C-alpha cells in the first residue's frame, strides 16, 4: 500500500443472498491516474463502483477512497467523489442547463455560482448549443456528456465512471475519451469500468480484469497486452484434420503464448504482427489450405478466452444481481 493511492480496496466482498457479486477484491488506484476495471456483464463492476461511491455497503472487506473508509466516513467520501452510473442520472424533463444548475444548488452553491458553473461545464462538454433543450431531446452521446458533466459540478477529485461509453457510437466514444483525458490531466483520479479492451487500453494507466467477482489479471495496458496479446489472430484450416499441425506451427512462431483451439479454428493473442508473413509461409510450405487467416484487435471476448480458456458468458448475472437487491 502506498501513500499515493486515491482508491484502495482490501478483500472487498459483496453478497446478494447466495450470489457472490464481488469476491475478495484487492485493488488500488494511484492518485491522478486512471484505473480501468475490465470485465463482462455481471462480473461485479457496477457492484464495486456502487460500494466505492458509498451507495451500498460491503458484506466484507474494506475500502478507502481519498483516505477515508467508505463505511465509517461515507459523508466525507461524498464531498470529493463524482459518479456517472450506467443508468442516466439526469432528469429528462429538465434542460441541460437546469440539470447542472440543480446539482449546483443541491451542493449549496449560491444561484449565481450554480449558473456560472453550469455554463462553464456546458461549454467544456460542447453542449452550449443544447443548453436550453430538455435532456430527453439529447442524443445518446450528448446525454452521457451531460451525465458526466453533472457528476463534475462539485469539482470531484475522484471520479467513478461505470461503463461510460457502452452503447455509444465510435465518434461519441472518442469524444468522451477526450473529456476523460482532460480531467485526468487536471489531476482527477478516475476509476473506469468497461467492457472494451480498447477503452481500457486508451485511457487506463492500470487495468484490472475481473470475472465472476474476482480479479483475474492486473497490470499496465502494456503488461497486460504482453500477457494476452493486443491483437488476436484467428486461423481456420480448410480441413479439420490439420488443426493440430496448424497449432504446432503457430506455437512454434509464438513460443510465449498459448494458442486456443476452438470451433475448428486456432485463436491466439499476438503482440508482434511482424511474424505474420513467416507464419503464412510456414502454412503454405506445408500445403495447408485456409478458410480464414484473420488478424484483428483483441476484444474482451478474446481476452477472456486467453485468460480463462473460455469465452465471456452472456448470462443473466446482472439481472440476478438486480433482483437480489
Amino acid at each position, binding site marked *: *500500500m*502506498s*501513500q*499515493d*493511492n*486515491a482508491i*484502495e480496496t482490501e478483500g472487498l466482498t459483496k453478497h446478494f443472498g447466495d450470489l457472490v457479486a464481488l469476491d475478495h477484491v484487492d485493488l488500488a488506484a494511484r*492518485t491522478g491516474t486512471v484505473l480501468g476495471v475490465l470485465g463482462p456483464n455481471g462480473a461485479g463492476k457496477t457492484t464495486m463502483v*456502487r460500494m466505492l*461511491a*458509498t*451507495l*451500498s*455497503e460491503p458484506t466484507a472487506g474494506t475500502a*478507502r477512497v*481519498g*483516505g*477515508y473508509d467508505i463505511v465509517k466516513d461515507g*459523508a*466525507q467520501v*461524498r*464531498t*470529493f*467523489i*463524482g*459518479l456517472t*452510473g*450506467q*443508468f*442516466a*442520472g*439526469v*432528469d429528462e*424533463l*429538465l*434542460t441541460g442547463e*437546469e440539470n447542472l444548475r*440543480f*446539482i449546483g*444548488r*443541491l*451542493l*449549496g452553491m449560491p444561484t449565481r455560482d450554480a449558473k456560472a458553473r453550469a455554463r462553464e461545464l456546458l461549454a467544456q462538454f460542447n453542449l452550449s448549443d443544447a443548453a436550453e433543450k*430538455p435532456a430527453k431531446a439529447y442524443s445518446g452521446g450528448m446525454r452521457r456528456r451531460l451525465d458526466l458533466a*453533472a*457528476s463534475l459540478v*462539485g469539482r470531484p*477529485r*475522484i471520479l*467513478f465512471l461505470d461503463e461510460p461509453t457502452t452503447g455509444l457510437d465510435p465518434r461519441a466514444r472518442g469524444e468522451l475519451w477526450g473529456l476523460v483525458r482532460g480531467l485526468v490531466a487536471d489531476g482527477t483520479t478516475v476509476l473506469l469500468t468497461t467492457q472494451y479492451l480498447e477503452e481500457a487500453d486508451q485511457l487506463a494507466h492500470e487495468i484490472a480484469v475481473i470475472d465472476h467477482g474476482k480479479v483475474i489479471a492486473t497490470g499496465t495496458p502494456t503488461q497486460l497486452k504482453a500477457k494476452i496479446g493486443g491483437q488476436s489472430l484467428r486461423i481456420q484450416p480448410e480441413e479439420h484434420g490439420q488443426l493440430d499441425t496448424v497449432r504446432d506451427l503457430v506455437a512454434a512462431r509464438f513460443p510465449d503464448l498459448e494458442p486456443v483451439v476452438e470451433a475448428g479454428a486456432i485463436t491466439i493473442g499476438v503482440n508482434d504482427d511482424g511474424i505474420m508473413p513467416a507464419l503464412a509461409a510456414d502454412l503454405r510450405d506445408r500445403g495447408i489450405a485456409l478458410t480464414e487467416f484473420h488478424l484483428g484487435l483483441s476484444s474482451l471476448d478474446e481476452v477472456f478466452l486467453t485468460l480463462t480458456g473460455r469465452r465471456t458468458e452472456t448470462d443473466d448475472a446482472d439481472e440476478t444481481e438486480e433482483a437480489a*437487491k
Partner: protein
Amino acid sequence: MTAATIEAPVIHRPGLGATVSQVLSMAWRQMVRIKHNPFELVDLSLSPIMFLLLFVYVFGGQMAGSTSDYLQYVLGGLIAQNAIFLTMYTGTGINADLRKGVYDRFRSLPIARSAPLAGKIFADMFKQVWSIVVMLGLGLLMGFELRTVAGAFLAALVLVVFALAISWISVLMGVVADSEEKVQIYAFVIIMPLTFTSSAFVDINTMPGFMQAWAKVNPVTHLADTMRGLLSFGPITEPLMWTFVWAAGIFAVTAPLAMRAYKRKMV
C-alpha cells in the same frame, strides 16, 4: 497502510440549514418539471372535475333532494378524497426516479439522505393547493356557497398538513414496489374503499351498523367533516382534532418505515 488523504470538510451530518436548502432545491426541480410539462396539472385536474360534475348532477337530486344541497354537502368530501388520491403521485414519482438511477446520483452527493424524499413530498404540496383551488373554483361556478373566505384558506392549510403526513404511506409504497403500476394498484385498492366508507359522499347514519362503526373512525370521515365544516356547514373543532391525531399517527408509523425501506433499498 495510510492512503493519500484528501482534505475534506469534516461533516458527520449536514446542518439543519443545509438540509432545508437541499429539500428546497429538490422541490425546485419538481417545479421546473411542471414548468416543462404543464399538462401534468391539467391531467391531475381532470378526474376531480369529472367526479364533482358527475356526483352533483347525477347523484345529487336523489342524495339530498336537490343538486345544490348535495353540492354544499359533497364538495368538502370530494376535496378530501382527491387530496388522498393525489398523494399517490408522490409514490409513483419516487418509484420512477429510483428505477432510472436519479437517486444513485443523489446518494453520491454530500447531501442529507432524506432530502430527495422530503423534497418530492414538499413539492407535491403545490399540486394539493392547485387541486383545491380548481375544485373550489368549479364548485363556486356551480353555485357553491362558501362559509367564509378565511375558512377556505384554513381548509387548504389543513389539507396540506394532512397530505404531508399521509404522503409517507405513498413514499413507502413507492420505495418498496418494483414498478409504478404496482404503486398505482396498491394505492387504488386502499384508497378507493377507504374514501367511500366515510362521510365524504353520504351521511354515515344511513349505513348499516358495522359500516357505521368503521366510518365513524375512518380518517377520511374526519378530514371530509373538517373540510365541510370549514367550507360550508357543520362542526369544525372535533373533526379537525381527529384529523390531526390521525395525521400524526400515520406519520409516526409510516415515515420511519419508509426511511428504513429507502435505506435498505440501497444496500
